[in-house]
C-alpha cells in the first residue's frame, strides 16, 4: 500500500486550483493564510460540455462541483437526490453512457461529451416510463426521496443482466445471469430505501422486466 500522505497529496494535486483549500488540512497551521490567499487567486472555473436527457449543456463550473450538484444546482434538474453525498445511499444514481453511477461521487468536469440520463429523462408524470409506472402500481416507494435513484438503478440493472454482466450472487460467471429475484435484490443493494419499500420494489422491477419472480 502506498504511503497514505503521499497518495493523498498526489490525488488532490490532480485537481488544480479550486481544491487548494482542501489541502490545508494537511499543512502546518502557519501556512494556512498563505495557502488560503493563493486559493483566492488560483480558483478557476472549468468549461465542460455534456448531454443531459438528450439536451446539450455547456457549463462553467468550479472544479469541485460534483455531477450531482451540477445537475441539481446548475441545470436545476432536482430529480436526482442528495441522500448522503458520499456514495453510500444511491439516491443520486444516474445513467451515463448506459451505465449507472452515483453522481455524488464524480466531478462534473470529468464528464466532457458524456450522455447523461436522469430520472427526468426516463418519463414524465403524463408519460411514465414502464419502470416508473410499475413503481406507482406496486407502491414501490413511500417518501419518494430514494425513488429516482431506485428507478434509474433498476433500469440499468435490467440492461446489465441483458448484457450478461455477473453479480456476487450469480452461480456461474460464464453463463448469462437470470432475471431472478435474488439477482435483482443483490444488484439493487446500493440503493437504500429507509422507508423499506424493498418488497414492493422487487415486484415493480419484476413486472417491468416481464418476469414472474
Amino acid at each position: 500500500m502506498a504511503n497514505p500522505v503521499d497518495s493523498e497529496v498526489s490525488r488532490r494535486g490532480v485537481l488544480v486550483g479550486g481544491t487548494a483549500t482542501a489541502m490545508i488540512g494537511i499543512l502546518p497551521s502557519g501556512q494556512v493564510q498563505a495557502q488560503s490567499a493563493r486559493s483566492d487567486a488560483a480558483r478557476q472555473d472549468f468549461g465542460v460540455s455534456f448531454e443531459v436527457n438528450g439536451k446539450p449543456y455547456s457549463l462553467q463550473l468550479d472544479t469541485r462541483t460534483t455531477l450531482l450538484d451540477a445537475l441539481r444546482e446548475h441545470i436545476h434538474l432536482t430529480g436526482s437526490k442528495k441522500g448522503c453525498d458520499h456514495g453510500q445511499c444511491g439516491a443520486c444514481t444516474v445513467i451515463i453512457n448506459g451505465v449507472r453511477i452515483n453522481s455524488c461521487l464524480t466531478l462534473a468536469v470529468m464528464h466532457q461529451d458524456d450522455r447523461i440520463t436522469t430520472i427526468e429523462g426516463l418519463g414524465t408524470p403524463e408519460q411514465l416510463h414502464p419502470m416508473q409506472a410499475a413503481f406507482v402500481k406496486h407502491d414501490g416507494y413511500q417518501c419518494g426521496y430514494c425513488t429516482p435513484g431506485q428507478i434509474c438503478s433498476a433500469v440499468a440493472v435490467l440492461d446489465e443482466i441483458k448484457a450478461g454482466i455477473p453479480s456476487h450472487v450469480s452461480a456461474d460467471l460464464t453463463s448469462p445471469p437470470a432475471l431472478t429475484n435474488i439477482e435483482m435484490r443483490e444488484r439493487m443493494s446500493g440503493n437504500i430505501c429507509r422507508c423499506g419499500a424493498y418488497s414492493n420494489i422487487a415486484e415493480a422491477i419484476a413486472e417491468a422486466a416481464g418476469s414472474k419472480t
Partner: protein
Amino acid sequence: MKFDTPAQTNPIDRMRLVGRAHPRIDGPLKTTGSATYAYEHRDVVTNPAYGVIVGSAIGKGRIARIDLTVAERAPGVIAIVIAENAGKLGKGKYNTAKLLGGPDIDHYHQAVAVVVATTFEQATAAAALVRVEYAQSEGRFDLEEALKTAPLAKDPNSPEKQGPPESRTGDFEQAFARAPVKLDELYTTPDQSHSMMEPHASIAAWNGDKLTMWTSNQMIDWGRTDLATTLGIPKENVRFVSPYVGGGFGCKLFLRSDAVMAALGAKAAGRPVKVALPRPFVPNNTTHRPATRQRIRIGATADGNILAIAHESGSGDLPDGQPETATNQTRLLYAGANRLTSMRLAVLDLPEGNAMRAPGEAPGLMGLEIAMDELAEKLGMDPVELRVRNDTQVDPEKRDRPFSQRNLVRCLREGAARFGWQRRSPSPGAVRDGNWLVGMGMAVAFRNNMNIPSGARVRLGQDGRVTVETDMTDIGTGSYTIIAQTAAEMMGVDIEKVLVRLGDSAFPVSSGSGGQFGANSSTSGVYAACVKLREAVAQRLGFNSAEATFAHDQVLAGNRSAKLIDAVRDGELVAEDKIEWGGLDKSYQQSTFGSHFVEAAVDGFTGEIRVRRMLAVCAAGRILNPLTARSQVIGAMTMGVGAALMEELAVDKRRGFFVNHDLAGYEVPVHADIPHQEVIFLDEADDKVSPMKAKGVAELGICGVAAAVANAVYNATGVRVRDYPVTLDKHLIGLPAIS
C-alpha cells in the same frame, strides 16, 4: 366537530373510495423526480446563497475562542453566524438542547457556526477554515454506569404524570416470589438512528420581518412555533412550507438546526439561504432513539397464567430530557394481577434522545417479546398459546376499562395458520437445510392509538372540483391519497376531482405526522370540514342537510336531486372545521394489535443470519387504503429487521459521540436483506376512535418485529442473545457442532 360519543353510520361507511387500494396520487410526481423537496424550491427562490454548518468537535465543554478571520476571507463567503453574533436566541418548547451551541457545548456536532457563501463548494471549503478552540470538560457518556445512580422518572405522556414514578398493581414482589415458574432477565437495546433518506434541509427567505421557510418537517405548527420562539419573533411572521418530506420517522418532528441556521444565515447575508445537513451530521446533530437497559421479571403458573409481571427500564438523555418509555406496552398487553413498571432516566451528555418510530413500544417489545419466548420455553408451551392464554379484554390496571376493540387473539391464530407455524420445531437448533440452521419466531405487536386535534379547509369550486387544504404532511405515509379518498367519499365525487394541498402553515393546523396518529386524525379533520361543506351545499340547494346524500356528482334528498355543481353556480363554497376529541380514550383503552412471524436461517459455519420469510397480521380499525397501509407495515417490518440484526449507534464513551454516523457505518437493511413480506389486515371498524373508525399502522408495524427475528434466530441456533442487535459474533461460539 367534537368526537365524544361513538361514531354512528356515516358517509365513510359506504367505502366507495375509502378502504380501497388506490395508488398514491402523488406517485407520478415522485417517480419522475418532479416532487419538490425542501432544498429544491428553485421556482420560488431563484437566488439562494448556500449555508454550511460547522459542528462541535467535542461532546461536552465550551468554546474558548472562534477565529473566523481565515474563513471570512475565503472566496465567495458572504456571512458567518456564530452564537456570539447571532443575537439573543430562545429555545423551542420541543428542543432539549439549544440548536446553536456556544459558548457552552451540549453535545458533539451541535451547530457552532453557519458559513454562507455564493456557492455550495465555497461554503463547504470556508466552513473547514473556521478555527474553533474548545475547552473540553468531563462528560457522562456511559449509560450502564450512569444508570447506577439515576433516579426514577415519570412517564411524560402519562395522565398520572403527577403521581408516583412507579406503576404498581397488586403486590408484585410477593406474587413473583411464590410463582412456580419464573423468568428474570436483562435485555439491552442500543441507540438507533432514524437515518431517513433526506437529511434535514431548509431554505429561508426574509421579506422585511416576515420569514418563509421551505423545509422538511413532520409537524408544521410545532416547527413554526419553535422557530418563532428561537428567533424571538411573532409566530405570525413565520411561514413553514413542506409539501414533500423525504422521510422522518420522528427525526423531523421538531425544529432542527438546518432551519435555525438557514434563518440566521439569510438574515445576516441579506438574501435567501439554503442549508442541508450533511449526512454525517444526522446522528449527532439531530435526535436518535435512546438505548435502554430493561430488567423483565415474569412469574407464571405451571399452565402459563401470568401471576406477576415487572418491567423496569433505564435510558439516558441530556439534562431536562425524557425517558424512553419502554415499559408502556407492559402496562396493557398481558393479563396478570400483580404488576410493576418503572423507568429510570440518567443524565447523559450524548446528543439528544427523542422519538423514533414507535418510541417506547419499539424497544420495549424488543425486550418483552423475547422474555415471553423464554417464558414459553420454560413452561414447555407454544409461544403463540402463551400469548393467547394471557390475553385481556380490559386494561389490567383498571379492570372496569375495556379496550375499544382488541382482536389480538385473531391476529395470533390467523398468523400462525397462514405462516405454517405448526411446522416449527419446539426444540431449538433442530432444523437444518444444508449448511443452514433454520428457525421460526413470533412476537406480538402492540401500539396505542393517539388522537390529535386536526383542522382542514375544503373548497367546492365552480368547476366542480374539491380542494382540501391542511398543514398535514405526507412523509411517505400516503396522506395525500387518503385525504383525497376521504374528501371524495364525503362529497360524492371521483378522486380525480380532488386537489389536496398539504404542508403549509397558511392552511389550518392539523395533527401533523407522528405517533401513528396522522392518518386517523387528519382524515377525521377533513371529514369534519366536509360535513360543514355538505351543510353549505344543502343549504344553497334548499335541501335538508340531514337527509342529503352525495354521490356521482349529485346531491339527493328524498325524491329531489340536484347536481353538486348547481350549488356553486353563484360562487364557490368554502368550509373549515377541525376535529376535537372528547373523553372516549378515558372510558376505552384504544390500541392497535398485531402478530409478527419470521423464518430465519443461520449459517452453521459463519453464524451469518438471513431472514427468509416475514408475515404480519394487523388489527388497527378501518384500513383507509390497503395499498399504502401495507407499505407502512412492510417498511416498519424492514426497520424492525434492522433493529434486530444490524442497527446500533456505537458510543465513544471517552469522547462522547456516535462514531458510526453515516450510512456506511450505521448499517440499515438493503434490498438483499429483505425477503418477500406478507401483510394481512383484519377487517375492522372501531367506532370508539373516530368518525373514520380507523387507527394507525405505521408504528404498529415495527412493534415486536425485532423480537420475532431474535426468537427465530434462537429457534434456529439454540443460542439466546439478549443484547441487540443480534450479530453473528454474539452467537458464533455457541452454535451447534457441524456434523
